[in-house]
Structures are given as structure tokens and as C-alpha cells.
């Protein structure tokens, strides 16, 4: 048995060890059931009637290469005729709907909880005490709602 490490058929030894490792990792670190089941629920959260505003810029990622992050973190989402610009600083989010519009803006978190506020005449809005995790924003514009992609804070 001590010769095994020098055995000619090392690739089959590797395959066996690899299979054993897979079993070990699955035993100790499988996907938690609550996480998998929560993922099942996510499909029903799509807002198919809303226009999706896609993430165009995130200073947490796109400012890479610079030592340290640009702060506050800035994100920019764009739909065809509307964009939503935000800054995240500690636990609050300030943002603007562009072109400026006085509309309802709703924040949804990944547990399904929502908070709504109304933007001011120049489209500014502010959410306080936003908890960590994935969130998205929906602006209810007169022509239809615009929802951002999910993003993590």
C-alpha cells in the first residue's frame, strides 16, 4: 500500500480521491436547505410589467484598480428613457430619478419587505436605515413603472 503514491495509474487514484472529496464536501458544506428553498420563491418576485433599469455603473466594481473605493458608493441604472442614480453611504441611500420627476419610489428587500417614499420636484429621494442584502428600487412613473436590477448593499 505504501507504493500507491508512485503507482502508474495515478489518474484513477486522483479520480477516486476527487470523488471522495466531493462526498466529504457535500457532507459538511451542502447548500443550506433554507437558502435553496428561499431561492424557489424568487421567481414570483419578478415585475414583468415594469421596465428593467439595468445597472450601468457600480463604483464598488467599476472603480477597480484605484486603491480604496470611491466613497460614497455610486450606482447608476438605466432604462430606455429614465435613469436612476444613487449613492449609498453607511445605511442610507440618496438618489435621483432622471429626468426629474415627483413620483413614488419603492425599495424592496430580498425578504419581500417594501418601503415607499415620494421623490421631490427634482427627483431626489432618500431611504434611511436600509438593511444589508439584495434590494431593488421601483419608480412609478406616469408612463409605467421602472424597476432597477437587484443589487447588494
Amino acid at each position, binding site marked *: *500500500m505504501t507504493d*500507491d*503514491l508512485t503507482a502508474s495509474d*495515478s*489518474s484513477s487514484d*486522483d*479520480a*477516486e*480521491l*476527487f470523488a*471522495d*472529496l*466531493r*462526498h*466529504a*464536501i*457535500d*457532507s*459538511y*458544506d*451542502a*447548500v*443550506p*436547505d433554507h*437558502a*435553496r428553498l*428561499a*431561492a*424557489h420563491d*424568487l*421567481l*414570483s*418576485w*419578478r415585475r*414583468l410589467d415594469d421596465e*428593467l433599469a439595468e445597472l450601468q455603473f*457600480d463604483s*464598488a*466594481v467599476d472603480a*477597480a484598480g484605484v486603491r*480604496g*473605493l470611491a*466613497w460614497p*458608493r455610486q450606482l447608476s441604472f438605466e432604462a430606455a428613457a429614465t435613469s436612476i442614480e444613487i449613492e449609498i453611504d453607511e445605511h442610507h441611500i440618496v438618489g435621483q430619478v432622471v429626468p426629474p420627476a415627483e413620483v413614488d419610489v419603492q425599495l424592496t428587500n*430580498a425578504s419581500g419587505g417594501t418601503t415607499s417614499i415620494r421623490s421631490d420636484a427634482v427627483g431626489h429621494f432618500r431611504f434611511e436605515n436600509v438593511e*444589508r*442584502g*439584495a434590494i431593488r428600487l421601483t419608480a412609478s412613473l406616469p408612463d409605467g413603472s421602472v424597476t432597477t*436590477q*437587484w443589487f*447588494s448593499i
Partner: protein
Amino acid sequence: MPLSATAKAPERLRPPPPTGVRRPAPSIRRVSDDLTSLVQAASRDDQAAWNTLVDRFSGLVWHVVRGFRLPDAVAEDAYQTTWLRLTEHLDRIRQPESLAGWLARTARNECLRTIRLSQREQLTDEPDEPDGATPELDARHIASERDAILWSAFATLGERCQELLRLLLADPPIPYETISEMLDMPIGSIGPTRARCLQKLRAADGVANLREDR
């Protein structure tokens, strides 16, 4: 038309894949068709199809996320955000066979984003202690002593070995092109690196004796 028209060698004479990694060999066509209908059904709000997709690719996403040493809650957030991204992306998947690669890249990007943010905020609430952590046993699996030894040995490997092995363990498999891109490693280096990582695993405490009690 007889089969002899093809230049292919008979199945048994074909050389093994260059990487030496054993891959499942399902009927590609069938799996891909199945995946296409699942993706299409899920994008039409078919809950059962979505659940099947999540269940099938959960392990893959989790392996990618766990390749990073993030606290559990942060890892679960990255896992969840990956699936949220897929709900937004479902309508645009033109090649369902690329889903494994897309999920792997998306999960990795979410982790990298989290890590960049945590550098600013010290989000990681506990220092990384890969060796010291007592593994929590998952109640659904009965872990043997073999599992325990391998799990401890795995934790002693370097970060890059752990990440590579995790990516290679994913089932359904993550395409080599994607792994190469994710780790910034030439495709030709994946097989040899995997072999070296397994060699290190084999050299860890207790692992060499495992085969004897098989």
C-alpha cells in the same frame, strides 16, 4: 450510410480527455433540450420548472460562493443574489447550455463585489480561520470518518487549490473555458494544477491511510 464514413476512432480507442478529469458523459443533446424547455418554462412563470433549475444548479452556485472565505450569512446573500440575477436574465438566455458558465461567473462577480465592499466596511465580522473552524456537520448527510479527514485536509489547502477544486467539483460541470477565465489560468494548466492540489490533499494528515480501510 454506414458509420465507416466518419474518421472517428472507435469509442474504446479514443484517448482520455487531456485534462485527465473524469466527466459525466450524458447525452448532450437530451440534456440541452431538457434545459431549454426548463428555462423557457421558468421564464413563463412555471414555478415547478424554476424549482428544478434552482435545485439542479444550487450545488454549482454554492461551490463557487464557498470558494471564497466569506462568513456564512454573506455567502448566503451572494448565493441568493445570483438567483435574483437569473430571474432578471431568464428571458435573455439564448443558449441554455451556457447557463452553468453564466451562473458561475455571476456568483463569482457577486462575491468579488462583496469582498470589495467589505474592504471598505470591514463587513466580514470574523477573521478567516480556515483551519481552526470546527466543521458543522450537515444533518442530511451521514459523514463517515473518511469525510471528516478529507474535510479537515481540504481546509489546509491554499486558497487557490480550494477554489479550483470547488469549481471542478460542481455538478453540473462548469465549462473549462469559464473556469480558466474565472481563475485567470490557461485551460491547459487546469488538469496539472488539479493533480498538484490533489497531491497536497493526499499529503495531509490522515489522508494517505484512507485507502487502506476501503
